[in-house]
């Protein structure tokens, strides 16, 4: 694919998603005022017609759909999505308050799943074929088959309820202000531990599988055989030769996984009532909070696209074979 073509694809995807971002929330039945009006089991509020009209006009919901669309397009360029209905604060502020928590959890989970996935994958390939390889393989498939919220609920019940080692939820102890940063960081980590483990468990298997299969394939390559014939030890062979060349295709997978994890944090954050953007997205959908949905969808889109571009950019630089192939195509 030529560079121009690639750029064109990305711009096309972005445009399509931008259109979708506007229309998708509005395809859901019911609107934000419907949500504000009725409030489930605590319902007891009587918005008068005057109050309702004021709300509608304040949020430009009585404008025509096209006017709202124009307003939305404008907001894309200014990054000013307006006020969240739910929090009555600028969308950017609402998201900014929660994004760091999600980045912490997603970052931690990415790190753990990569390190553990690669290590276990390599170990599995080393022991292939054998009983421990098969055991790891089945174990990983099992873990990946269990839905994330179930894993979350399970570790929550064990670690927080049964044994009481870790907190039930939230990102930090409320109004906890120790003098120094160390206990504060420990508190944050204690709260983040279970969400990170849950999210990592869900992403471990795919990295493991790829690493294992690649490593097994690479092991059969002539250059490895040659290295073995040279008398290089098993361990060094695995780490220096097999691991290096097998991990190359993993770069793409890992990059895409990170993007996906951001969206995948919805379930995990809900289980642990963790105040990140995943939980925010859930709230925003339930409340039909259009401005907040616009902001969140755009953020996630940009995130995924960014990591895709990064993978596209990085890969040829890591693997010279692809670079030459591309050049050849261009000539």
């Amino acid at each position, binding site marked *: 694919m030529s560079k121009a073509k690639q750029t064109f694809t990305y711009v096309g995807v972005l445009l399509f998603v931008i259109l979708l971002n506007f229309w998708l929330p509005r395809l859901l039945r019911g609107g934000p005022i419907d949500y504000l009006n009725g409030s489930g089991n605590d319902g007891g509020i009587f918005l008068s017609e005057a109050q309702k009209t004021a709300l509608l006009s304040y949020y430009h919901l009585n404008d025509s759909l096209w006017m709202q669309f124009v307003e939305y397009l404008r907001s894309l360029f200014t990054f000013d999505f307006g006020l969240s209905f739910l929090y009555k604060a600028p969308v950017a502020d*609402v998201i900014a308050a929660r994004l760091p928590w999600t980045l912490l959890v997603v970052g931690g989970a990415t790190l753990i799943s990569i390190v553990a996935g690669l290590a276990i994958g390599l170990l599995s390939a080393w022991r292939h074929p054998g009983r421990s390889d098969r055991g790891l393989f089945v174990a990983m498939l099992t873990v990946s088959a269990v839905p994330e919220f179930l894993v979350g609920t399970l570790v929550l019940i064990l670690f927080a309820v049964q044994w009481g080692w870790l907190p039930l939820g939230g990102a930090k102890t*409320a109004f906890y202000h120790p003098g120094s940063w160390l206990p504060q960081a420990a508190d944050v980590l204690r709260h983040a531990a279970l969400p990170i483990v849950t999210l990592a468990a869900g992403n471990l298997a795919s990295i493991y599988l790829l690493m294992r299969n690649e490593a097994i394939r690479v092991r059969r390559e002539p250059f490895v055989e040659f290295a073995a014939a040279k008398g290089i030890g098993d361990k060094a062979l695995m780490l220096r030769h097999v691991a290096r060349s097998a991990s190359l295709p993993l770069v793409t997978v890992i990059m895409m996984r990170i993007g996906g994890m951001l969206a995948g944090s919805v379930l995990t954050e809900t289980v642990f009532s963790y105040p990140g953007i995943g939980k925010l997205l859930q709230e925003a959908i339930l409340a039909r909070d259009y401005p907040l949905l616009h902001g969140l969808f755009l953020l996630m889109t940009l995130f995924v696209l960014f990591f895709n571009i990064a993978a596209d950019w990085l890969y040829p630089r890591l693997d010279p074979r692809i670079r030459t192939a591309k050049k050849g195509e261009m000539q």
Partner: protein
Amino acid sequence: MFQRNKVYSFIVLLCIAMTVLSACSSGSGSGSGKPSAEPSPSASAAAPAAGGDVPLIRFAWANAGYPSPFAFSASGPAGFLRNSFLFDTLTWKDDQGVIPWLAKSWTLSDDGLTYTFELEQGVTWHDGQPFTAEDVVFSFNYYKEHPFNWTGDISRIESVTASGDNQVQFKLNEAYAPFLSDLVGIVPIIPKHVWESVDNPIEYRGEDALVGTGPYKLKEYDEAGGQYSFVANDHYFKGHVKVKEIQYLSVDNNAMALKNNNVDGAMTYNYGDVQQLQKEGFDVIKSNPTGSAVRITFNLDHPQLKDKRLRQALAYALDRASMAQKLTGGDPMVGNAGVIPTDSPWYNPDVKQYNYDPAKAEAMLDELGYTKNANGVRDGLKLSVLVSSNSPESQVMQEMLKKVGIELNIQQVDSATFNAAMGENKYDMAITGHIGLSGDPDYLRQWFLGNASNTLAARGKAFANEQFQQLAESQMKELDPDKRKQTVFQMQDVLAEELPTLVLYHRPFYFVYKKDVYDGYFNTYGGIADGIPLWDNKAAFVDVQS
């Protein structure tokens, strides 16, 4: 479980035996049958709460937004209650009913149209500025342009004027009986010197946005986590603030948070949780009056349901007593056909009721022409019920209606979809839950005359019954409590006969708390403000001087 119960009851028996023994021995010693004046252990544990100040109470509740009068979350009562800690109203409520608050006293003109309020003197805003009549006038004018985020029908007021620093006059368009409780008891007074320069109050987050006269100031609000910390206002005009700090913590599961000692008090309506927590040593208050209803709203435009005989037949077919027993436990309160909970002072004890009578239901259905086919199903009658969350009521209903040959289809949707369907009248029956039913009965007018835009009250759809509409209007304007009560009784008669809605049961709320942390809670008469049956009434945390 059984084993444990046995052990437990054995210990209880042992304790009783020991108490009896010791009582006998001490009784013989003192020689009098009078109960000992010595405080019991539990009372002594509560003593610090009754006497000195309490440093901190932690309550469980979800995030309710930034607590300014324009920005708090209006879904659910929490936003309003958080706001009421910071801002005061002219009147308020305690366990006896409406009491003076920012207004010391008031008089009503003979024509019932002019209220004159005498304001408290020497009240200061949190920033030290004096509170005056001008602030009251300003507030009501400001709300005309920028509506308050909760209830309170400002349009009833023709004008508000100040006469001097401490006197305010409200002129009404017409007599309005719920004025003291449901209007000036709800709408908070805001400082003129802050808001007069604010054009966009919803977005306003200035440092002075939360300057009120209330018993608490906001120390910290963690918006992402939904945690609040309120600290006492040491210069509160209404009396000494006993509880120095109140935190609201957003937790996922109230019962679990109580058990784990994350909070000191929490609300629940799960009777199983209540029993469990009571066993673990927590104290419990039950809402009284109940103040809530879980009900079926009938779509009165539905071709079949518009016939009241069908609605009545459904009422006879539903064993609401057993449903209430199953779903609420404790002492179940079967729904009043006249809507108002049976422990409310406005309840009409002579109103028509529909006791479970499946034979009568079947006879009525046959008479209406919905005959059973060979399989015992009435094919001519297929109804659906719309629910917004996991509703055990609908499942019980489905079973009960099956017995009289009606197939009920349950449609479960999320709450925004639910409200849209209600607003557009695209449903047969819907199950909704409400609070606020023990406050002023004017809600009956708002529900059924389509004045409230609340979708749960079937927005924009009036209950087309001329007699009811007249009664509803006249009760609102009737200032004589006894006469008004008679009118409200008549309204209940109409509702019970016509059944535009069928209340399944009145759901009690429970407050589970630790007595040794604080024990000053009470049930607010008629519910806080517009009938909120909860316990975080700010008057409970202040030594109120009248």
